[in-house]
């Protein structure tokens, strides 16, 4: 292992035991988090490969690189892998798994064996999905809309649906573990109002996982049953209603957007106060806005269906509720900005990601309000405007949060510091690459380029923006690969990390880096509020810079 560089070392969770069995049968939440990091990163690169195919195809107006069918499969599998096998588990299963027990002052999650089980379920699901991919893939789009998925598509819909069904259990079990841990495993003195906002946000995420995931599970099972056993539930030729499928699908899949973004907000809520050296502005509002997002997020799903033939009155209500869900998101953005205001802001790598997040999420969120407006939605529905909007939320939001969090807690996870200047460089490359990829897509969508088209030779004037987008995607790819390289490099060559390199508050920083198997040598007794930065010294690096 990489930790052999320092010869006499305290036992920690990494060197507590050796051998492959000690990893595959571990019930330590920190080791399981590492297993998840490796697996979701692998899935991320597979999903990224399909993104690469999409961008290369769109480089020229003619459909020349891929066949139409291959293109359909490429965007379907890009979406399904990224959503169900990367974004949904991303932060919760890795950073959440690693940090939540430490943040509440527990030795482990409430159900360590169920935690391990959730990883095995994830692996089983991923294996089934990769098998589906290898045997020819699926072309339904990530949304599995019926009747195409249940009647017409002759690709491997059932396998893909079952893989996602199985992956759902892994996320249900993760959510279950978090909720019970937050309720029952808090250290003495760790009251609800002293919980870090990271925990609040994950609590809200877990509620969505628990109440949303089973609905998509049963929906995909019904699609699979329709294909295999001729049941008639969504198929109009058998008396079923395809719009019902859309309702059930979005009942999960809209809240799922909050499963992806809330954990990123969790990360940002930790990074911003730390690198502003200030208490978070309006703790209660940030905490409660997470819960509000989870609650209202369940009531907006039909804004994906404004042109699917739902009633005008229903559409009006869903449009209004969509505006409403923007309020708690806006509260968060205002509070993070207010936290930075007059703070001692330093631009370390995690902070660069956090600031990138705030800007990009604001754009993603506001364009979401455009899309929730009935008239605008009809105009830009199913265009690249939608694609750009949700990539601003999912990549500009969720992925930037993930990268920022990985850097922020890397010293804790690995016991090593990453190279700061490389980190900053990568953060800037990601930011530039991201905007170059997706901003042109807003314009493309606004001028009418539909999503899921593989050939736009009737509109050659769209090419310039598409070339920009593809160029941006290649820059973005560099931005993703760089952290991979230097984080792995730092495992061996990085400076050993002190216990609290950022002088951050939070219980996870009051134990060793990397932490011992049971997290704390002694269960802490909490007598302070979260984010008491006025009592913390400045971190060493920041002091040197000044």
């Amino acid at each position, binding site marked *: 292992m990489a930790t052999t560089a320092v010869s006499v070392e305290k*036992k920690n969770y990494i060197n507590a035991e050796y051998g492959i069995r000690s990893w595959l049968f571990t019930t330590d939440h920190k080791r399981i988090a590492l297993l998840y990091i490796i697996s979701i990163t692998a899935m991320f690169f597979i999903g990224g490969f399909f993104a690469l195919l999409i961008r290369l195809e769109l480089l020229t107006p003619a459909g020349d690189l891929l066949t139409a069918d291959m293109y359909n499969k490429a965007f379907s599998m890009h979406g399904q892998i990224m959503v169900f096998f990367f974004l949904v588990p991303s932060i919760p299963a890795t950073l959440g798994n690693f940090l939540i027990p430490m943040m509440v002052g*527990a*030795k*482990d*999650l*409430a*159900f*360590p064996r169920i935690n391990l089980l959730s990883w095995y379920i994830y692996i089983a699901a991923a294996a089934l999905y990769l098998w589906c991919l290898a045997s020819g893939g699926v072309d339904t789009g990530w949304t599995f809309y019926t009747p195409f998925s249940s009647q017409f598509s002759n690709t491997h819909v059932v396998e893909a649906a079952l893989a996602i069904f199985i992956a759902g259990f892994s996320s*249900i079990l993760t959510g*279950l*573990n978090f*909720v*019970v841990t937050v*309720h*029952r*495993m808090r*250290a*003495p003195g760790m009251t609800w109002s002293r919980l870090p906002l990271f925990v609040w946000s994950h609590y809200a995420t877990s509620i969505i996982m*628990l*109440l*949303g*995931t*089973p*609905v998509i*599970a*049963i*929906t995909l099972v*019904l699609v699979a*049953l329709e294909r295999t*056993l*001729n*049941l*008639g*539930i969504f198929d109009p*030729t*058998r*008396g*079923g*209603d395809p719009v*019902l499928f859309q*309702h*059930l699908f979005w*009942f999960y899949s809209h809240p799922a957007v909050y499963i992806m973004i809330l954990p990123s907000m969790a990360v940002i809520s930790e990074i911003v106060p730390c690198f502003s050296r200030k208490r978070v502005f309006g703790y209660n509002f940030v905490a409660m806005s997470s819960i509000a997002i989870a609650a209202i997020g369940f009531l907006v799903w039909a804004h994906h269906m404004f042109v699917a033939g739902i009633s005008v009155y229903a559409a009006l209500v869903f449009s209004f509720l969509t505006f409403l869900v923007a309020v708690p998101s806006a509260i968060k953005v205002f509070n993070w900005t207010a936290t930075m205001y007059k703070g001692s802001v330093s631009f370390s790598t995690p902070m660069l990601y956090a600031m990138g997040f705030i800007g990009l999420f604001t754009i993603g969120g506001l364009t979401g309000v455009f899309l929730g407006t009935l008239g605008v939605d009809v105009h830009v529905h199913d265009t690249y405007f939608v694609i750009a909007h949700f990539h601003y939320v999912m990549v500009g939001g969720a992925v930037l949060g993930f990268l920022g969090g990985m850097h922020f807690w890397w010293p804790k996870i690995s016991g090593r510091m990453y190279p700061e200047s490389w980190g900053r460089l990568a953060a800037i490359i990601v930011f530039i690459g991201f905007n170059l990829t997706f901003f042109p897509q807003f314009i493309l969508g606004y001028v009418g380029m539909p999503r899921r088209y593989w050939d736009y030779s009737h509109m050659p004037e769209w090419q310039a923006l598409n070339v920009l987008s593809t160029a941006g995607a290649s820059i973005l790819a560099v931005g993703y690969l760089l952290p991979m390289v230097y984080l792995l490099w730092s495992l061996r060559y990085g400076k050993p990390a002190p216990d609290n390199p950022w002088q951050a508050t939070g219980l996870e920083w009051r134990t060793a880096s990397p932490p*011992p*198997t*049971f*997290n*704390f*040598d*002694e*269960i802490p*007794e909490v007598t302070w509020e979260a984010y008491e930065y006025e009592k913390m010294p400045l971190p060493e690096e920041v002091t040197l810079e000044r």
Partner: protein
Amino acid sequence: MSDSHTIGEAPLAVEHADRPELRHHFADVEQQRNAATLGMWWFLGTEIMFFGGMFCAYLIYRRWYFPEFAAASRSLSLPIGTFNTTVLICSSLTVAMSVRAAQLGNRKMQVRMLLLTLVFGLAFLGIKTKEWSDKYREHHIPTFDYNVVGGEGDLIQENKHLLGIDKVENDPVKLRAREAEIQQHTKVFYSLYFALTGMHAIHMLIGVGLFGVVTWMAHKGRFTPEYHTPLEIAGLYWHFVDIVWIYLFPLLYLIDRKPIS
């Protein structure tokens, strides 16, 4: 709550040597029990949402296709369904009694009640299988050669008024169109019937497996009046699966059982 635990050095197994059932990361049995119970309640919440998707579909289609749903519902056997409901309610009673026996520390009674639960559970599944095979014979399973117009599983003759057949009987074109509609819409009912009862049966199977383990644990004397959490939370699951059936029975069997005029 935990106060003076030293951890980190203490090996996993030795820490709570006096209480083998207490897992290392809990401070005391109380905390462990609370966690397990809360976990099961939340899990049952997810189960409600899981069945909720199908109940939602049921609600919509029942409103759209009420006559067809009522006619198809009449084809289910009321005596068998009622009997099976009774069997299931009895199984919940024996579960409750086994928990009571555990609280009183009566091991023999505990095991006996758990075995009875297993018998009731398996009996329910057996009777359900019989009902399904009847449906197969009547061509009411959407998967195999589905037909409700004429033949063994005919629904038209007995429900002419309900299905509005009497109004179109004299017009062969309209009659055929209506029959095709009935064929389609009853198929939705049976699709939901098999999806719902099938999912319920899968849950029953899991429950029987779970109670197999719990019975074995009870037989080994693992449960004491102070500690019988596995029995309790398995019981919660069993009761939940029962309650699902309590909803399924009226929704599927009792849509419209007025005497046929």
